[in-house]
C-alpha cells in the first residue's frame, strides 16, 4: 500500500498537509504534532514587507465553522526566511510557502527572495488579497487579473507554483482554466468564503472588519463541489481543502479530483487532526484493497 503522491515532480510521503494560516510555520504546533509525519507544511501567507493585519476581533465561531479577518498579518519575507524557513530545515517534510501581496510587483519581489531558499519545495500564491491598484478587488476574482499575476509569478519563480483559488467567484472552472493557461503548475482550493456575523444584542458586527472568511466543516460540501469542477476543467494537479475533519472527508476530496488535501480550521479544534487523517486514509486503503491513491484520485 502506498500513500505517497507526486505533484509537479515533488514527492510527498502522504497527501496530507495543513492549509495556510492555520498552522503558523509549523513551529507553533511542533510540541503537539510530529511535523515529520506530514506530507507538507504550508506556511502562513508572507509578503514582501511586514503587514499589520486587521483590528480585533479577528475571529468568530459560527456553526461548524469560523469566520476570520486576520488581514494577512505577517512578519515580512526577510524575517520569514531567517526564522521560519530556518526552523523548518530541522524537519523531513516538504515546505510550501504561501505568498501574498498588494500588487503584482509585491508578489514578484517576495517570490524572487524565495528563489534561492533550498528547502522550499513549492510556492502557493494566495490571490484572495486586495489589489491596491484595482480599488481593493481581489486578484482571484477576475480571470484576467489571475492570468496576469500567474504569468508574472511563474516568470520569477524557481519552484513549482500552485495558484490558490478563491471560491468567491461565479465559475471556479473558468478561474482554474485561467491559472492553467497562464502557466500555473497546480491549483489549490478553496480559500475561505466571504461571510458575516452580527451580534444582535450589541447591534454590531462580530468582526471589526465586518466581513470575514468562512472556513471549517460548514463549507465542506461547497469545497468538494468546487474541487470537482476545477479538476474536470484542468489537467494540472488540484490540492483540495475546505472543512476537512476526517479521513472520510479527505477521501471525498480525492475522489472529486484532489491529488492532495489540506486541513485548516480543524487544526484548532484538534491538533492531531492531520495525523488522524493519515492513519484513517491508510486504514481505508487497506479495507478497500487500494494499493495506490491514484486508483481513486478523480474517479468521479
Amino acid at each position, binding site marked *: 500500500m502506498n500513500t505517497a503522491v507526486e505533484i509537479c515532480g515533488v514527492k510527498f510521503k502522504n497527501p496530507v498537509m495543513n492549509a495556510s*494560516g*492555520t498552522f503558523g510555520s509549523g513551529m507553533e504546533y511542533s510540541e*503537539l504534532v510530529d511535523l515529520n509525519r506530514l506530507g507538507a507544511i504550508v506556511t502562513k501567507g508572507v509578503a514582501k514587507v511586514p503587514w499589520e*493585519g486587521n483590528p480585533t476581533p479577528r475571529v468568530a465561531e459560527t456553526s461548524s465553522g469560523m469566520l476570520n479577518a486576520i488581514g494577512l498579518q505577517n512578519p515580512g519575507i526577510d524575517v520569514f526566511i531567517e526564522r521560519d524557513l530556518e526552523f523548518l530545515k530541522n524537519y523531513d517534510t516538504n515546505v510550501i510557502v504561501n505568498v501574498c501581496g498588494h500588487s503584482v510587483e509585491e508578489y514578484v519581489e517576495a517570490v524572487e527572495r524565495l528563489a534561492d531558499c533550498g528547502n522550499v519545495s513549492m510556492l502557493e500564491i494566495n490571490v484572495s488579497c486586495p489589489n491596491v491598484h484595482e480599488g481593493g478587488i481581489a486578484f482571484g476574482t477576475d480571470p484576467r487579473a489571475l492570468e496576469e499575476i500567474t504569468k508574472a509569478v511563474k516568470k520569477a519563480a524557481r519552484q513549482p507554483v500552485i495558484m490558490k483559488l478563491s471560491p468567491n467567484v461565479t465559475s471556479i472552472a473558468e478561474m482554474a482554466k485561467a491559472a492553467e493557461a497562464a502557466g500555473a503548475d497546480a491549483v489549490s482550493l478553496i480559500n475561505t468564503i466571504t461571510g458575516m456575523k452580527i451580534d444582535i444584542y450589541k447591534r454590531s458586527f462580530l468582526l471589526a472588519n465586518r466581513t470575514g472568511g468562512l472556513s471549517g466543516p460548514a463549507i465542506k460540501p461547497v469545497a468538494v463541489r468546487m474541487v470537482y469542477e476545477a479538476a474536470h476543467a484542468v489537467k494540472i494537479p488540484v490540492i483540495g481543502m475546505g472543512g476537512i475533519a476526517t479521513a472520510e472527508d479527505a477521501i471525498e476530496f480525492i475522489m472529486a479530483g484532489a491529488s492532495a488535501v489540506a486541513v485548516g480550521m480543524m487544526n*484548532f479544534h484538534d*491538533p492531531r487532526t492531520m495525523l488522524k487523517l493519515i492513519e484513517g486514509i491508510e486504514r481505508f486503503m487497506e479495507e478497500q484493497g487500494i494499493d495506490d491513491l491514484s486508483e481513486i484520485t478523480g474517479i468521479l
Partner: protein
Amino acid sequence: MISEKAVVIEKEQLAEGIYGVWLKTAAAAEARPGQFVMLNTGSEAHLLGRPISICDIDREGGSLRLVWRVAGYGTGEMSRLESGDGIDIIGPLGNGFDISVAKGAENIAVMGGGIGAPPLLGLVRALHEGGAENVDVYLGYRSAAAGLFLAGEFKEFAAVHIATDDGSEGTHGTVIDALRSGGKQPELIYACGPMPMLKGIKQYAEERLIPAYISLEERMACGVGACLGCVVKTRFKDGHSQVENARICTEGPIFAAKDVDI
C-alpha cells in the same frame, strides 16, 4: 505544552453561574500562575476551544483548578461536567505572571474584577510561597448577594479588600476606589478583570510610574500562536510579528500595562 483528554476530579459551584473544577492533566507539570488552557467540549457545531485561566496548581497531584462564569455555549456545557468526565485540553499556554519582579517590592497590589479573580489566586499563593509580604488583594464583585467567590481563599495568603458595585460589601465602587481609599500606594500591581478596570489601572499606574502587569483577553481560535487572531496593539515593534502587534495567547496574556495600547 500538551494536548490530551483531562479528567474532572472535583467539581464545585462557587456562586450563581460560577463553576470550578480540578482537572487531572499532564498540563499541571509545567503550569505557572497566569497561564491558561484551551478547553474543548467536543461539540460538532462549536468547534473552537475556550480559553480559561489557570486558577490554582497542584503540582504533586498533577491537577489544575479552573474557575469560570457561564457566558455562552462552551462555558454552559462545561458547567455540566461531573467528576470522572473527560474534556479535551491544550496547555499550559501563554507567558504567566512574572513573579521575579516582586522581589524586594514592599506593597504589592493584586487587583481582580469579577471573573478576573481566579488567576490571581495562584499568583497570590506563589507570591506567598516566595516570601512576599505586604500583598494586598483588591477584589471587585457585583454584590454580596451575587457571591464573593474565592474571597475567603485569598485571605489565607494576603489581606483582602472587597469592592462591590452596589456597596453591599466593602468599598462602594471599583477595586481602584478600594485601592485609593486604603491610602497605601503600591510599588507593583498585578491585575485581571474587565477592560474598563484594566484601562483604569493602566492610567493609575502610569500617572504614578508604578509597574503594572495586566492579563488581557481576546477572541482566540488556536490558543498556541498560529492563527494570529488574538493580537493586542503594542507600543513597540513586537519581535515575533515585526509589527506593533503581539499575540495575547503567546506573548501574553500578561503584559506590562505601559507596553500595550488598550
